[in-house]
C-alpha cells in the first residue's frame, strides 16, 4: 500500500489508512522492548495500563502459554521457565481488567484474547507428546472460560484466537467441544523466522486440514511467495513485530492486516489515528 500510495503522487489519487486491530505482543507492550519481560505478570499489569486519550491503546492482549513438561503444568511464559506463573494467573488479570475497566479496549466493545500455544515443553526443545497436547489445549480453554465469564459479566464482546506454530496443538484445541462452544473463535497458524534461523517454524503444508481463520507472520522474514500462498487461503493476517520500524509500518499498508501484534501499542495507535 505504501508503494501504491507513492504511485498516487503521479496519479493524483488518495489512499486509505490502515485500520487494524492492535494486539499487545507477548503481553508486553509498554513501548520499551525488554524481551525478558515478555509474558510476565509484571509486564501484563503495566500493559493493561497503556492508554491513549484515556482508552487502552490496544484492542486485545496476546498471552503465550508453555506446557512445562518436567513440572507438568501450564505456564504463562515465552519459553520453558521453572519459575513462570501458572497460565491461569494471566487469565485472572485479564478477567479483572474486563470487570473493572471503564473501557475494555480501544474500540470500546470488542476485546481480543489471543493465546499462543508454544510448541516446546523442555529446555532441550522437546515437543509435546499426545498427553501434553491434550493438557495444553485444556489449559487454554480453562483460560478462555475465566476471561469469557468476566466478559459476559461486563457486557464485553470477546474474540478468542488460538495461535500456534504447532499444527498438532491447534488440532487438539479445534476438536474439543469447549472450543466449538466459543461464539467468536479463530484458529491461527504462527510463522516466525524461516528455517534454519528458527527450527520450529512450520511449513504451511503442516496445517493441511486445520480450519485456519488467521495466519500470523513477520513481514520482513518471509518471501512474497509465502505471503501469496497465505493469501490464497483467504485468511486474515496478523503482522507481528519486535520494533515498529518504517519497514513494518509500510508492511501494514501493503498487507492491510486484520491485526497488528506489537510491543509498541501506543506508537502504533497514535500513528494509525494521527
Amino acid at each position, binding site marked *: 500500500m505504501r508503494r501504491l500510495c507513492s504511485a498516487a*503522487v503521479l496519479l493524483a489519487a488518495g489512499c486509505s489508512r490502515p485500520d487494524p486491530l492492535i494486539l499487545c505482543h507477548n503481553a508486553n507492550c509498554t513501548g520499551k522492548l525488554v524481551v525478558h519481560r515478555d509474558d510476565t505478570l509484571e509486564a501484563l499489569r503495566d500493559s493493561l495500563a497503556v492508554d491513549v486519550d484515556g482508552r487502552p491503546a490496544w484492542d486485545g492482549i496476546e498471552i503465550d502459554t508453555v506446557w512445562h513438561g518436567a513440572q507438568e503444568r501450564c505456564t504463562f511464559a515465552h519459553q520453558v521457565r521453572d519459575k513462570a506463573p501458572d497460565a491461569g494467573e494471566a487469565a485472572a488479570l485479564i478477567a479483572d481488567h474486563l470487570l473493572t475497566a471503564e473501557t475494555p479496549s480501544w474500540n470500546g466493545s470488542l476485546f481480543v484474547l489471543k493465546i499462543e500455544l508454544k510448541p516446546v515443553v523442555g529446555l532441550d526443545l522437546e515437543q509435546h507428546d499426545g498427553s501434553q497436547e491434550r493438557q495444553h489445549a485444556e489449559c487454554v480453554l480453562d483460560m478462555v472460560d475465566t476471561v469469557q465469564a468476566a466478559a459476559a459479566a461486563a457486557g464485553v464482546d470477546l474474540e478468542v484466537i488460538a495461535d500456534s506454530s504447532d499444527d498438532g496443538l491447534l488440532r487438539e484445541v479445534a476438536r474439543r467441544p469447549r472450543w466449538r462452544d466459543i461464539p467468536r473463535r479463530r484458529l491461527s497458524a504462527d510463522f516466525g523466522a524461516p528455517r534454519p534461523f528458527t527450527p520450529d517454524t512450520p511449513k504451511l503444508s503442516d496445517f493441511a486440514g486445520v480450519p485456519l481463520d488467521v495466519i500470523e507472520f513477520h513481514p520482513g522474514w518471509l518471501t512474497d511467495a509465502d505471503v501469496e500462498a497465505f493469501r490464497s487461503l483467504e485468511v486474515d493476517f496478523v503482522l507481528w513485530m*519486535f*520494533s515498529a*520500524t518504517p519497514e513494518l*509500518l*509500510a*508492511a501494514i499498508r501493503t498487507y492491510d492486516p486484520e491485526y497488528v501484534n506489537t510491543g509498541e501499542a*501506543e*506508537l502504533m495507535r497514535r500513528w494509525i489515528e*494521527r
Partner: protein
Amino acid sequence: MRRLAAVVAILLLAAPARADRPARDWHLGLNLRPELAVHPVRLGGGLRAGSVDFLAVLDPLFWTDGVIDTDLVTEWWLLRGFAVFAGWRPTAIDLGDGHQIQHRMLIGAGAALPELPGGFRAHVGFELAVLLYKHGGGLPSDGLSFDRSAADHISMGAFLQVEYASPL
C-alpha cells in the same frame, strides 16, 4: 537474499565511470528504491569533490504515511567506478501530536552505471541500515538491543540514483 543477488548482479554489470569527469560537480536527481524500508522515490543531491561525494536525500512522500526519511551520506569513490559510503538516516514518524525520531547508521557500497547523455548519470548501491536509537513523541526512548528483538533493528536496502550533474 534475493535483494543481495540482484545487487551483486547489478554491480557486476556496472561500468567504470568516465575518467574525464570534472574534479568538482553538483548533482541532483531521484533516489529510487525497491524495498519497504524507505519511500520508493526520494530526491537526492549533493557535491562531489575529487573522490568524495557529500549527499543528502530528502523524502517528498511523507504525506502518504507520516514517515519521513532523510539521508546524509559521505561516499568515497575508492576504485574506478566503485565506492563505499557511510551515513546517517534520521526517520520521523508522525504520531499526531509529536514525532518519534529513529536514528540509523548507514554503510554500503555503490557502483557507477554507464554514463548517460545530456549530463545525466546513474549509480546503484547496496546498504546496511542499523537502528541505533529512537526517542521522542512522548514515548520511551530505546536503543540498539542485543537480544532477539535486534532482528528488526537491522535492514538491508538497494537503490538506484539517477541524477543530473554539472561542473562547479
